[in-house]
């Protein structure tokens, strides 16, 4: 439960307000094992603690990578860290993406905005265990072209065998030659085989609700659709109750759930 100090190794500016920071353990601390979809509690000394999903490659255990959008005091402080600075890390926590369940299936990943960050470890995992998975479909939506994360990687993933990458933005400039429209509009272009697929969704909750509904309309069962939820996580181990969502604690029972588990709760205003 005590944060372990890591030092900032690299800071990459992804978009005007989103940064990817690579951390490595200080003082010869051990390797960083994590499952795709798990998160850490990051302590910015003197400012506060943040729950942030790990966005790096689970195969590279000498580092922890986080992609953070600067939206408030603590996130601003985190993304402003310079190489060499110290950051406290607790974790990893939570139940991540079901990469084992998806083995032997098509994997349909639908991400919105910064929601691509928690899904990137899944993509790394699939690409490094390519023979274990069938078709990979990545559907990604962002607000505008300048808000797209990991542009170079998106292009490189699109060149992989048996991989389809579809990208859209809600607002496209004149130089944008790709799709314009909400992320659900891409489903009709996706090479979907619902009967043999597992879908993983991450993005704003309202987006996931629309996507899950549309995937169900395409023939996906509710138990085939997984979503990563977000609530105000504090302790990260299910003690404090800040992230309670109906009968679940997002930090401990999630953040990844099936649509079957949480679909009915997503329609409740109070939750």
């Amino acid at each position: 439960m005590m944060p372990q100090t890591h030092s900032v190794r690299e800071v990459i500016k992804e978009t005007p307000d989103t940064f990817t920071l690579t951390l490595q353990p200080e003082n010869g601390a051990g390797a960083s094992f994590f499952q795709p979809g798990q998160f850490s509690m990051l302590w910015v000394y003197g400012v506060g603690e943040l729950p942030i999903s790990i966005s790096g490659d689970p195969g590279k255990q000498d580092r922890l990578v986080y992609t953070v959008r600067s939206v408030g005091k603590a996130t601003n402080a985190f993304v402003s860290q310079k190489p060499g600075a110290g950051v406290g890390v607790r974790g990893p926590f939570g139940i991540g993406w079901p990469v084992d369940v998806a083995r032997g299936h098509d994997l349909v990943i639908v991400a919105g905005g910064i929601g691509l960050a928690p899904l990137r470890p899944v993509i790394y995992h699939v690409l490094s265990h390519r023979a274990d998975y069938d078709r990979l479909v990545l559907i990604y939506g962002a607000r505008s072209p300048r808000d797209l994360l990991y542009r170079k990687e998106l292009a490189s993933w699109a060149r992989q065998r048996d991989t389809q990458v579809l990208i859209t933005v809600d607002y496209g400039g004149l130089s944008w030659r790709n799709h314009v429209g909400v992320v659900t509009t891409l489903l009709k272009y996706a090479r979907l085989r619902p009967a043999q697929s597992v879908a993983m969704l991450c993005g704003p909750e309202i987006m996931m609700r629309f996507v899950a509904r549309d995937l169900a309309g395409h023939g996906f069962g509710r138990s085939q659709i997984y979503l990563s939820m977000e609530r105000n996580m504090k302790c990260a181990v299910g003690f404090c109750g800040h992230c309670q969502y109906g009968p679940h604690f997002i930090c401990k029972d999630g953040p990844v759930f099936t649509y079957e588990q949480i679909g009915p709760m997503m329609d409740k205003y109070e939750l």
Partner: protein
Amino acid sequence: MENLERIIADCPFFAGLDHTYLNLIVGCASNVRFEAGSYMFKEGTPADTFYLIREGKVAIEIFAPHRKPIIVSTVGEGEIVGWSWLLPPYVWKFHGHALQSVRAIALDGKCLRAKCEENHDLGYEILKRVVQIVEHRLDEARFQQVDVYAVQR
């Protein structure tokens, strides 16, 4: 003609349509091509055609004085562009801009309107399909309006 009928029959918009109706529709159809960067139609001009996109991407743009055109959505392979041909005053409300080289089936709206007037069963079938597209695009526009990726404060 046979080829056109097959292409039209394979289009989701016309899925399940009776063979007799397909024959009537084929009579109003022709193959067209648009170069990347060209305009398929412009706002304010007569909307006497609609398009079934076979290949390429079309931007639906709003003209904005003193600004660059605003792309509100894109339409691609297998989709229909345009419903202004069906409703008075039969005038395009937006620009249709070919973002890539576009191959399409152009359907003569005037010709089809006349056939729909003569045969209300055909008219009802077409209207049901157009309304479904209008509903989808309205849903998409509403969802877009929510601006889900904006920072929640």
